[in-house]
């Protein structure tokens, strides 16, 4: 009594054919070029032996253009679930060796089914995008397939984390599925992403440009802000995925992976005092402050190359996972501008969805002045920061390092925007505007009469208002602390707010200015 050998032989033969994708020679050719295959990527992502494949025997149903005679293994996309660092994750990986990874009806259905599975089970979705685009032979069915994937991206958004790796071409409409996810990682050199490529741009507008300029990883990381991380190769992209997952929960009802077993260290860190320049005009590299604030100086910066006057990223502070938002005075004096407001607001909203406490480090002289900024809609964009902080119900801890001026101070999570704890260093300057400007308005007549009085008036104003104590006297600051106390105090503030629950009136969603 045993299963018929012929049944097993058929299964094995069918499996082997699917595993070979577009053919063993094509898979080898990719590997020789230093590229992983669709299945290599999943093998590298998941703990070996844990991958459960969905729809391995899927076949397209196209009857046009001779397609009925062609077999497309797995319909050019491998989908399934497995364990990443011990946690279940769903993934789909497009196979460029099969019909150029093109998306047809069944291909799209497989992706949608995997996403449905992920959202029902509450696990992250990691996609590997490597596709020539729509499968034209299937006509409008492939277009509809994209629509279904987009709809599912939106359906999942805010419930489970979605991470897209752009590992090859991602052109036209295909780019919108990654764009709807939470984080995009692009592999340098082998990936590109664009709506209209150089040929179309040339034909339509006469503008000449290269593929790198339009859709390369560097352009998207530093200029368009469309992506969050650049990877050197496939293996590095997967390392980045794992690192990112290590800071975020599997879904929106779980807490992030805090490690509350670490013993609290509540002593001072004198090195933090030494970082602060004597002169308030000397820029302080906020990355140095972050390195001392977080565990093991391990700060996982998001969108490092774009809108650099604001730094955002993940870390742990004495075991508690946090999202850090910090002004960078070394770039554009730390001002908030259109791009940095967009960057900050999106990051804050991600953290709020996934229960990640926010730690805000403030050193902001104001919003960036300029005609371009005003005409570009700095009002609308800056409002996103206010909206994102105001709407966030996770623990919000704010540390005012130095400058905190005007509306930008509010937009960096002042107490009024719902911060649970606000700490200020003695170097904090919390004021409605700078002394020079304020004195010109307050003492216009006096200065007109006696211009020599201006310097004294500025000094007087600065003494009185360019400090943390006026704000502290009005209970806008929890406490003024030595920089050396920051790590210990923030760690305690986090432990004290982890059980925070804030409920608001029910609504579909607020109307963030987009």
């Amino acid at each position: 009594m045993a299963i018929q050998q012929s049944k097993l032989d058929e299964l094995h033969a069918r499996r082997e054919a699917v595993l070979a994708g577009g053919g063993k020679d094509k898979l080898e050719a990719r590997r020789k070029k230093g590229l992983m295959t669709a299945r290599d990527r999943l093998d590298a992502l998941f703990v070996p032996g844990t991958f459960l494949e969905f729809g391995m025997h899927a076949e397209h149903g196209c009857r046009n253009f001779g397609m009925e005679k062609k077999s497309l293994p797995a319909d050019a996309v491998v989908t399934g679930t497995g364990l990443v660092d011990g946690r279940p994750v769903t993934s789909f990986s497009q196979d460029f060796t099969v019909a150029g990874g093109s998306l047809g009806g069944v291909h799209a259905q497989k992706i949608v089914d995997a996403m449905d599975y992920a959202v029902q089970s509450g696990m992250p979705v990691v996609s590997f995008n490597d596709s020539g685009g729509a499968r034209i032979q299937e006509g409008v069915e492939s277009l509809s397939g994209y629509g279904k994937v987009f709809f599912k991206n939106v359906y999942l958004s805010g419930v489970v984390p979605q991470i897209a790796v752009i590992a090859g071409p991602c052109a036209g409409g295909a780019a919108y599925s990654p764009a709807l996810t939470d984080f995009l990682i692009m592999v340098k050199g082998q990936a590109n992403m664009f709506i209209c490529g150089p040929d179309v741009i040339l034909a339509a507008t006469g503008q000449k440009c290269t593929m790198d300029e339009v859709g390369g990883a560097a352009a998207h990381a530093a200029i368009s802000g469309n992506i969050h991380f650049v990877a050197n190769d496939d293996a590095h992209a997967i390392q980045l995925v794992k690192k990112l997952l290590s800071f975020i929960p599997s879904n929106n009802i779980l807490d992030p992976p805090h490690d509350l077993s670490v013993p609290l260290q509540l002593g001072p860190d004198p090195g933090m005092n030494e970082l602060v320049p004597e002169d308030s005009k000397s820029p302080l590299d906020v990355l140095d402050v972050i390195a001392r604030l977080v565990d093991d100086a391990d700060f996982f910066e998001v969108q490092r190359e774009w809108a650099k006057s604001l730094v955002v990223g993940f870390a742990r502070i004495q075991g508690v996972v946090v999202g850090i938002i910090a002004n960078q005075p070394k770039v554009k004096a730390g001002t908030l501008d259109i791009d940095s407001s967009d960057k900050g607001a999106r990051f804050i909203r991600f953290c709020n969805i996934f229960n990640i406490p926010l730690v805000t480090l403030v050193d902001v002289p104001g919003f960036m002045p300029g005609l371009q900024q005003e005409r570009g809609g700095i009002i609308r964009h800056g409002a996103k920061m206010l909206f994102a902080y105001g709407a966030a119900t996770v623990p919000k801890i704010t540390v005012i390092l130095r400058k905190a001026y005007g509306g930008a101070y509010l937009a960096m999570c002042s107490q009024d925007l719902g911060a649970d704890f606000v700490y200020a260093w003695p170097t904090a300057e919390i004021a409605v505007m700078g002394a020079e400007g304020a004195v010109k308005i307050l003492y216009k007549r006096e200065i007109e009469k006696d211009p020599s009085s201006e310097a004294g008036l500025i000094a007087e104003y600065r003494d009185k208002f360019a400090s943390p104590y006026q704000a502290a006297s009005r209970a806008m600051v929890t406490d003024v602390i030595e920089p050396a106390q920051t790590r210990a105090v923030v760690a305690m503030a986090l432990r004290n707010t982890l059980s925070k629950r804030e409920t608001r009136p029910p609504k579909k969603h607020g109307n963030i200015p987009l």
Partner: protein
Amino acid sequence: MRKLRVTVDGKAYEVLVEELDGGSAPAGTPHPSRPATAEITAPVVAASGPSPSAAGPGSIPSPLAGRVVTIHCAPGQVVEAGVNLITLEAMKMNTFVQAPSGGTVKAVLVKEGDGVEEGQPLVTLE
């Protein structure tokens, strides 16, 4: 788990280090333990950055609108990459304009006290 003592700036920290074996599946653990390390790399800056049209090759543009406080270089001077060429003041903060690469200062295009626009060439390097 290994317990290590790490001293940073004279202060000793006790840390627990767990060795992660990629081959085993710690099934059932709800959260990953300490993450796999992954370095973030800087991309090569794209050729068509939003570089201001006024700045030709070798010219160093002002990163923001402000006032020139100090000029730290003079024509003919040989400078290394990262050296501070000009200090600007804007938005209550000093901004250092540094040499992006080593070279010889060909011309200094502004003087102390000048107001400058974002993107305005400040120095040309050869």
